[in-house]
């Protein structure tokens, strides 16, 4: 099981702050494709990956990063702190 989290407008488009998934995906990209197949709302949220960032186990990474037993994957727009 992997915990998938969504923040800011990604959370609003998908409709939940997080969910637990059973997945065979090997990389972040494969997980994104798997989610997009599930339902329209994922397709909408993931329609432009250049507008999104991803963190695996709370470290910023790229979409080709391997999941490799990761516990947590998070999708969010570019950060706007400070």
């Amino acid at each position: 099981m992997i915990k998938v989290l969504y923040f800011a407008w990604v959370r609003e488009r998908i409709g939940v702050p997080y969910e637990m998934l059973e997945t065979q995906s090997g990389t972040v990209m494969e997980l994104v494709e798997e989610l997009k197949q599930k339902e329209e709302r994922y397709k909408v949220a993931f329609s432009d990956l250049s507008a999104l960032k991803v963190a695996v186990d709370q470290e910023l990474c790229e979409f080709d990063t391997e999941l490799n037993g990761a516990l947590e994957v998070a999708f969010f727009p570019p950060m706007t702190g400070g």
Partner: protein
Amino acid sequence: MRVSVQLDDFDIGQELDLFRNGKSNTGAIVSFQGIVRNNSENSLLNMDIEQYPGMTQKAISKYVMTAVERWSLNDALVIHRHGKLFPGDQIMMVATAAMHRHDAFQSAEFLMDYLKSRAPFWKKEITKKGYHWVESVLDDEKALERW
């Protein structure tokens, strides 16, 4: 060093007094205070700052440790609020303590640049017309290149 991600407001004067305490080898403290700014139409009702519990604290701590090592700081402090904030409210503060002012200024700027676009916070602006998520600015991303 201390990093706090919190809902509550803070007293910057008190924080800086505490921060200065017992630092006899410090010759310079630089501090920065970030404030919720109204938009150009003055229509901002409030701001909602979302964080990634767990990651936000960790990410900030990583940049603070980098700054402490790179500029040989004696200490560093970051307080960043989340939740509902109103125009004029404090969002965050950074303070750095060094032997000399150059290191204190540089490290404070470095921390601000990194917090802007690398710390997991997202700002939502609620105005009289509705709400929108604040978009990241290319200049903020470019600011990282000088480090």
